[in-house]
């Protein structure tokens, strides 16, 4: 199965590393570059500074673990979404903005592509893993709102990414679709 991860910042990159043993082909889509501030909250290493995030993650998985992946260093739009998620058995949304989430939701619903979303609150106290049929994107309070640039939310990012990775694994191996809420005290399956 081809698993396409959209956005490989904090949640996406950490989840990808936790999916490295999966019997699936991982593909990463992200237009952004690795900056030094990302090293504290994302799965990138110093040698990846300045590289495109999708390409950097692909290189890290190959160099550290011998895992081959695909990378597309572009921004997802209504024009290229069909080509980028073509043949995907599962799409994983880890975007950081509502507009991109809406683009992939519309396409996945039209094409009946399985889509799971992961999202975290700005204060790092709460996160969701939710399948598209029950998901509505939340808007930022303002465009470009910053989150976790100093790594203070890294434990929650790890917990939420592990929950997402397990959700991906359950879908790839058993076609199960489970939603979860992740708080500071518990991971709760909600559907």
């Amino acid at each position, binding site marked *: 199965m081809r698993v396409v991860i959209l956005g490989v910042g*904090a949640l996406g990159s950490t989840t990808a590393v936790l999916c490295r043993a999966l019997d699936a082909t991982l593909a990463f889509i992200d237009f952004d570059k690795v900056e030094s501030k990302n090293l504290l909250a994302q799965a990138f290493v110093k040698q990846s500074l300045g590289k495109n995030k999708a390409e950097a993650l692909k290189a890290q998985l190959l160099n550290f673990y011998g895992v081959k992946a695909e990378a597309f260093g572009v921004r997802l739009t209504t024009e290229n979404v069909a080509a980028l998620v073509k043949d995907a058995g599962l799409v994983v949304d880890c975007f950081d903005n509502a507009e991109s989430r809406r683009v992939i939701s519309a396409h996945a619903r039209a094409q009946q592509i399985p889509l799971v979303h992961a999202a975290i*609150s*700005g204060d790092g106290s709460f996160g969701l893993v939710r399948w598209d049929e029950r998901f509505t994107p939340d808007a930022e309070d303002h465009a470009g709102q910053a989150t976790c640039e100093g790594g203070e939310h890294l434990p929650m990012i790890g917990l939420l990414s592990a929950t997402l990775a397990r959700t991906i694994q359950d879908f790839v191996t058993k076609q199960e679709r489970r939603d979860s*809420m992740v708080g500071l005290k*518990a991971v709760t399956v909600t559907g």
Partner: protein
Amino acid sequence: MAILNITYNGLSADYPIELDGQVADVDLKRIAQELVRSGDVPGLHLPNLPVEAFDGFVIDRLQGGTRLYLRPKVPFGA
């Protein structure tokens, strides 16, 4: 009968609630605030919960409105 789940400051708890028809988000937030302040929600007793505590929060209405989730916004991923 519905189950209202309230998440605040990283803690979540369920509260069974009898609602008379469709209740607006603003009213649900007010009800939740009173419940949390009064200590009626197990594990989530905050007598000094600020009035604006649930401003900007979202309410998900799932399973035909029998499961209600009052939670912080989750705009971020990457």
